[in-house]
């Protein structure tokens, strides 16, 4: 949610740099550079483990995320009954709830980012490629939307549809995806448009055109790789922003609904009991930090890999 949380400027700066790349072995070079970056590699491994646990953990673990153990309310972490991270104030296993929360938060992050990606890429590419009056109109619309206090619109969107989706957890989460994704695409659209316009006038494309290379081939061999770089960086940096945005919605009570949970909701619940039951805050808090750290390091690594000038 860069428009909301305001970290899209560094992004645009980074992307500007990332646009200057070219060449055939671009991706091999980039990959090699990325794999030399220890922080990024460690993050990718860790994130892989986290994602794996989030997807499969809730099925494998011996406790269910919504099973209430009446005699085990608010237990500290213990080996007994395998409540390795303790239980919450309802008497539910905190480890499996953590995995569930991770699953929801990662899903919200990825789907909302994809939504913004699809809208943003289509919008930006169309505006940039066709240009002229259409470009003017389309970018004016983006300008108008940029001036919106978006957090307010997300709140209003949630308020409108929340009661309608109450009791349908899946629908409710989709709503969060859409609300956040609908906010997020603006930056993407600007970036892709800028890219497309620069590329259109680049010598190697003009040369390819002059040589009679088919437009589709030009797009595939020259435009896509060049747009893809910044897009990948954008994605790795947007997912954490979206996860934070979801946690913000949970804080004001508009996030996912019980018995489902998310990292933000777990943290928010834990923050209320931080003095008596510190682990209910620490466990999801540290997990969230670790996850966001991973995304940030991967994003940095990718940016450096694609744009080696910086190192």
């Amino acid at each position: 949610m860069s428009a909301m949380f305001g970290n899209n400027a560094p992004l645009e700066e980074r992307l500007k740099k990332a646009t200057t790349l070219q060449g055939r072995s671009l991706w091999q070079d980039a990959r090699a550079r990325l794999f030399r970056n220890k922080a990024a590699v460690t993050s990718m491994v860790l994130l892989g483990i986290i994602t794996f646990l989030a997807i499969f953990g809730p099925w494998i673990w011996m406790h269910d995320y919504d099973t209430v153990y009446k005699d085990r309310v608010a237990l500290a972490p213990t080996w007994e009954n395998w409540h390795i991270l303790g239980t919450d104030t309802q008497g539910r296993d905190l480890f499996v709830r953590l995995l569930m929360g991770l699953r929801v938060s990662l899903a919200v992050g990825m789907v909302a980012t994809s939504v913004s990606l699809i809208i943003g890429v289509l919008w930006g590419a169309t505006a940039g490629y066709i240009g002229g009056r259409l470009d003017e109109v389309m970018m004016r619309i983006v300008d108008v939307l940029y001036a919106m206090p978006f957090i307010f619109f997300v709140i209003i969107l949630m308020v409108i549809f929340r009661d309608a989706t109450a009791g349908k957890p899946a629908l409710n989460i989709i709503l969060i995806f859409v609300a956040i994704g609908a906010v997020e695409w603006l930056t993407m659209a600007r970036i892709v448009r800028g890219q497309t316009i620069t590329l259109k006038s680049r010598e190697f494309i003009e040369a390819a055109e002059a040589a009679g290379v088919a437009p589709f081939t030009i797009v595939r061999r020259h435009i896509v790789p060049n747009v893809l770089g910044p897009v990948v960086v954008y994605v790795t940096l947007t997912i954490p922003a979206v996860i934070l945005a979801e946690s913000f919605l949970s804080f004001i009570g508009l996030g996912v609904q019980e018995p489902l949970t998310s990292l933000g909701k777990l943290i928010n619940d834990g923050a209320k009991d931080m003095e008596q039951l510190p682990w209910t805050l620490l466990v999801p808090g540290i997990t969230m930090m670790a996850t966001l750290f991973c995304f940030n390091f991967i994003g940095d690594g990718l940016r450096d890999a694609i744009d080696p000038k910086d190192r």
Partner: protein
Amino acid sequence: MKLSGIFGDMGTKISMFGYFLRRLLIAIPTLFVIITLAFFMMRAAPGSPFDIERPMPPKIKERIEAAYHLDRPIYVQYGYYLKDLARGDLGPSMKYKDKSVADLIREGLPISATIGGSAMLLSLVLGGFLGSFAAIRQNTGADYAVMGFSTTGISIPPFVTGPVLALVFGVYLHWLPTGGLDRGHMTFTHLLLPVVTLALPQIAIISRLTRASMIEVLRSNFIRTAHAKGLSERTVLFRHAMRAAVLPLVSYAGPATAALLTGTLVVEQIFALPGIGRQFVIGALQRDYTVVMGVVILYAALIIMFNLLADLVYGFLDPKVRYQ
């Protein structure tokens, strides 16, 4: 567009003026679109401001709804709203029976603005300093420390830092108030924790931003030239590098405003501050249509203004930019 076409060949100053004028002109339809969207979205939410716990006799409810034109078709209500707005009247609050929207904004805005402004200032100064420091000492322990702090700062939501700071400094140490104002007055001690809570993620972002652009600038040809000309390290840094490195910060002003507005919602709730952000959340949940509209308009205007200001400052700092 036309205006800049007229002024375009009369020199940069004029074209800048034209650009400014054009942007101002665009701001009006922009605001109009936002008002329209917000109006219809808010009315689409289920419930009405007069749904309360106890039922009212139907006649009384009708009477109340008529007083706010809620009995009329929505486009008529929209017309009424625009008419009032054109006269500068934001209307009465539908929930706070003894207050108008203007009253509420007048009371809440100074507090939100002070918190937001101070947080912005703090994060610019501290973030700028930390970022430059890290850039100059690139790839040293200091650099890693700053970047580690920065990544942490982005990763902890303010609704965790807020209560933790309040507990530690307010309850355990008794150094600072845990929240509220000094009987309606803003004092340094009362605002310190909220401002720090709000500024932390911004410090993190700004320090990363500054570091990145500083590194780039320090490597660029004109700095090398400056060094080669034998200018002192200090002059190079402050005269040349800083100026170039500050550009991304300026273009960050618009998004930063939006981010601070979001942040104030959280901080005001945690520290029980009577700002405008809290007013908005309560208003949205209670369906106080007019209050929600008032705050949306106010914040949209603020964002437009800061975006415009940022562009102008950018132009002054970077001679390469042409206003068109």
